[in-house]
């Protein structure tokens, strides 16, 4: 068969859109005599510093507090909505917890300007679990209202998915999916920058 692949050459990459010399993959400006590598792009010194600044901001306690506050608010909202949904159904609609994981992790990640990091992933997973556990609230609500030892009952609510695992393994499985989704979604962008790399003598400069 005659195929378009027969004419391919693998000496040089030919781009569908013209590549202007060595331009910064973030701001488009010429990189000058050297460049850095970040998420597979060549970046200039100014953008490298912007990446460092973003990372420093994400590591700050203020950033974590903001993510925790926004994430907890979202998890609480999702958890209450999920509990209301469960109150009107004979069985839990655990598939909702995957959506909770998605929403909570998205909010946590956005709070860090998408930088995120391991502790934000843990935060998103914990908040997703807590919101998912609220699906058991309708069953425990009569006891929570009556009991003098409410702290213990709230503890029971948090432990409910684990305690009920033998009776409803599929529900726990789906909550696990939700937590995994939160972990995956809150992953953020790798912030490792490598370089500098010399553009080399005689290399064409970007215009």
């Amino acid at each position: 068969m005659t195929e378009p692949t027969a004419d391919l050459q693998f000496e040089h990459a030919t781009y569908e859109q013209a590549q202007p010399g060595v331009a910064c993959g973030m701001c488009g400006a010429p990189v000058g005599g050297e460049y850095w590598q970040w998420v597979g792009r060549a970046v200039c010194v100014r953008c490298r510093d912007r990446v460092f600044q973003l990372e420093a901001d994400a590591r700050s306690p203020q950033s974590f507090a903001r993510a925790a506050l926004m994430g907890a608010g979202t998890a609480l909202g999702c958890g209450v909505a999920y509990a209301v949904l469960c109150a009107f159904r004979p069985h839990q609609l655990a598939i909702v917890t995957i959506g909770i994981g998605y929403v909570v992790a998205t909010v946590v990640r956005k709070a860090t300007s998408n930088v995120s990091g391991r502790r934000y992933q843990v935060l998103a997973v914990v908040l997703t679990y807590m919101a998912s556990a609220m699906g058991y609230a309708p069953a425990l609500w009569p006891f929570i209202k009556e009991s003098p030892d409410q702290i213990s009952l709230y503890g029971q609510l948090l432990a409910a998915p684990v305690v009920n695992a033998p009776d409803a393994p599929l529900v726990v499985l789906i909550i696990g999916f939700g937590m995994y989704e939160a972990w995956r979604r809150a992953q953020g962008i790798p912030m490792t920058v490598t370089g500098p790399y010399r553009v080399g003598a005689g290399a064409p400069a970007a215009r």
Partner: protein
Amino acid sequence: MSTTQERSLCRGCGAEIAASFLDCPVCHRLVHGAELTRLAAEARQAEEQGDLTTALGTWRKTLELLPSGTTQRATIEGQMQKLGAMIDGRAPRPAKDGRQGGKAAGVIAGTGAAGAMLIKFKALLVPVLANAKFLLLGLFKLPTLLSMMVFAQVGGGGHLGFWIGLTAAIYVHEIGHVATLRRYGIEASAPMFVPGLGALVRMKQYPTDAHEEARTGLAGPLWGLFASAVALGLGVAIGSPTALFVASTSASINVFNLIPVWQLDGSRGLKALSTFERVIVGVAAIAVGVVTRQRMPAVVGVIVLGRLAFGKAHPTGDRRVLALFLALVVLHPACAWVADRLIGGA
């Protein structure tokens, strides 16, 4: 954090190239040019020999060495879509003698009805035997075998027979994914079981388009249907409630997997369906849920219809995927329904 990292010098212009780059940022010379030339030659040779799976797998490897946005990449992706369509029957395979249908058509014409039946039988038998070898695949992989044993043991308790049967059914489901992925030349690991949760197959590459993705996604429930049916047949034949429980649970797990959310198989299957096809699947699933009084098919149907409001449906759709999705959404609940009735009557 900034780190120094391995670098190479461009043979064309002498610029330093970061280790993760696939071409020189200055002159765009491809870092893996020689390897790409070799792979392309291999892929073309496989195409000429009619080994489309090898050709597709080899082209897929070239994508890992080509920067995105290049014309080379776009051309190869186009070729991969053509090969994928030929593999799953959406496009005719090229005939070596220049005629559509090639050797088989000639033989059928020469041997009449009996010959046609033989060839049809062969056409059925060859894929069955080719796929059967995949069933043994994971059993020779130590991590799969060990994780299966742990999975069955952890779940086992006083119902070890049930858990062994269910583990086998889940294994068949996962092998369905592996077999179809490999048919498209996609590298995938053998199934790994996670005690208390389920099993997974890790893809090392990704399907080229929605048609491939839908078929690889629905292959699990399709093979799972075979496993559930065998368990049901066994339960009926020898009067084993354990086998019937396996059939019912396996079918329910497969229906759960057809829910089109997240990374579940149904979500992958839905990607190849047009709006109209989605409506058909959604309505059929709800109807099955109502008739069999099962929640899970109804949930599948409601979410299929609900997703009409979010995201784009496939512009052209895929009749074969539609037929497969419909069959799965009807036959799995039917299998669970029959098994449950037999358990109830036992």
